[in-house]
């Protein structure tokens, strides 16, 4: 195992932010960590990178205990923080060189690695420019270059594609795949399910400080393959309507938002007819009806009871 967390606990005053979390990441994986805001993802990352102290449990990285060999372990980790962390008064080349220097790189090796990192993220032609002249996407890419200059074995990417254009996002996702092909193990967190689904070989879903499910994308989808999500747009939603629907056999959950009703139910062809009957009996009209196939989003919804965008 490249990274092993065992019964990890982090408390802030009386709140448990990370609650007996155990997780294993194998070498060569792109591991996706999914969870709403406040799920404890960033706190977990902070503990892995040594920014937060561990209250209970242990973390082993590269087979070594983080509490004992922290300095050596840190040499093999590269963090791409959620917020852009660059020096405004240093140009792109100097920013990357600074972070390379922190990991002991110097002389020709440093120059070569800086050049390579900037080329990798497509900024080699902008190396003399200062970050304030960069677009959001370019800053994100420079943020990545600073994290990979020392060629870490483990790269932790905390929401690296937030607020950027599709072109830069694609570039970053391609970069993640390329880094993985070159031998780096990647821990990737994102709000974008499709990103996680597209690039991660293994996924863990985190909520309220705990891992509530983990596996490959297919394994997670199989967990709820006997269920389906029915989305209805109705003219006049009432409390009694949702209560009646919830009473139907096979309905797991039913909640409303505006004119929309979202129903999570066991697969049953007769159920849609029964739901339509309840709605028409209550004098409302169905404007649209959609039965969703299983996606990572529906897995997340099933397990946490909320969508990621709601959680944002």
């Amino acid at each position, binding site marked *: 195992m490249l990274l092993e967390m065992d019964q990890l606990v982090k408390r802030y005053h009386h709140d448990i932010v990370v609650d007996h979390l155990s997780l294993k990441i194998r070498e060569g994986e792109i591991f996706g960590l999914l969870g709403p805001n406040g799920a404890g993802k960033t706190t977990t990352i902070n503990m892995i990178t*040594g920014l937060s102290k561990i209250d209970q449990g242990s973390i082993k990285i590269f087979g070594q205990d983080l509490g004992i060999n922290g300095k050596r372990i840190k040499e093999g980790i590269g963090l791409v*923080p959620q917020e852009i*962390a660059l020096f405004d008064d*240093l140009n792109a080349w100097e920013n990357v060189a600074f972070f390379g220097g922190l990991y002991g790189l110097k002389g020709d090796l440093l120059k070569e690695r800086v050049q390579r990192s900037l080329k990798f993220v497509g900024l080699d032609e902008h190396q003399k420019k200062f970050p304030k002249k960069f677009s959001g996407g370019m800053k994100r890419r420079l943020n990545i270059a600073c994290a990979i200059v020392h060629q870490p074995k483990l790269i932790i990417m905390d929401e690296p594609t937030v607020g950027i254009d599709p072109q830069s996002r694609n570039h970053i996702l391609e970069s993640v795949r390329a880094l993985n092909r070159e031998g780096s193990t990647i821990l990737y967190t994102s709000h974008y399910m499709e990103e996680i689904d597209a690039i991660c070989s293994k996924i863990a879903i985190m909520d309220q400080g705990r891992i509530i499910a983990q596996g490959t994308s297919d394994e997670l989808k199989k967990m709820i393959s006997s269920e389906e999500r029915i989305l209805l747009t109705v003219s006049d939603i009432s409390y009694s309507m949702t209560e009646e629907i919830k009473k139907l056999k096979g309905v797991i959950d039913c909640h409303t938002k505006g004119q929309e009703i979202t129903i999570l139910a066991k697969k049953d062809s007769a159920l849609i007819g029964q739901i339509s009957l309840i709605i028409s009996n209550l004098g409302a009209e169905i404007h649209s009806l959609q039965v969703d196939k299983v996606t990572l989003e529906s897995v997340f919804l099933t397990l946490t009871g909320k969508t990621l965008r709601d959680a944002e």
Partner: protein
Amino acid sequence: MIILKNCFKRMLRSKLSLLLILVLPPLMISLLLGVGNNGTGYPNVGLVDQDESLLAKQLKEVLEDHASITMLQEEEINQALSGGRVSLVFELEKGFTEELINGNSPVLHSYKIQESNSIIPVQLAADAYVRAAKNLAIMAEGDTEVFYERLQLYQEGPLGLEIIQSNGVDGGIIERAIFSMGILGMNMLFLSMYSSIHLLKDRENRTFYRIQTSPLPQWNYLIQNIVGFLVIMLIQISGVFFILNFVLDLYLGVDVPALFGVMSVFAVVCVAFGVAVASLSRNKRQAGATASMLITPMAMLGGMLWPREIMPELFQHIGIFLPTTWLMDAVTHVVINGSIMAAAWEMSILILFSIVLFLLGSWRKVLIS
């Protein structure tokens, strides 16, 4: 050393910091000295000698190098001062020398109505002479003959006041040297705020947290920055000394390296002050507000902009709790006595200030973590 290099690169690249480091202090000093050149003439000083000792006679000789001395009786003091005949009166009570030789600390009383720049060197000269006499009396262990012998040697010695006068240095020049160090000290305090902002910038742009995820320990980051700020401040002092000495041709006392030493100790205080402000401020704006709230009053109360003696007693007492006061005292002693040892006590206090300020900076750091 990467943090240190980065610190130099970022601070020296900015035109604003270069202006603050090298251009502003000599510019301010030359402008203010040009304005403040008036009123440093030869003052009239009265002396009431009830002691009638050899020491009193020698004190009169010393004072005559700084002022025109008029001998007065005790009952004439008020009239002479209010009538403007003299600006300052010293009174040596009967038995002053005897008490001094016996190892006590008699007081040399001084009277004045209004503070003026011209009487400061006279006061300083009297103060230095009496202090030296007290030390000699302690060494003489009550032996009058030994005491006067040593006092004679002191007056003729290389560290005495005579050497200053033999160089043709008048009180106004000494005063200007002290004043210029005050202006430099104030600029150093402002530069320390630049250090605070530099540290806070790292926190605001999140690079500080990113650095913490690297193998570099947090203490190492702080030490390298502190060394960087200190070196930049020493560059400032060197640059300003060079400009004052060789370009503006300003007299900086007989022992310029000693004065440089005092300013270097104050540089440590300034860096510690910057680190403490950075730790206690949430952002750059707050640090800026703290700077304007603290530095100017510190400079005023510490006697960097004008002599402390012209302020009400309450303000003078408040000044005791400020490093600026101790810097100005140290500068005064070194400029007048020409020896760094003359300011040993003041420098110890300055070092104490820097320790307290560094502790304050690290205390907040512990809270953050």
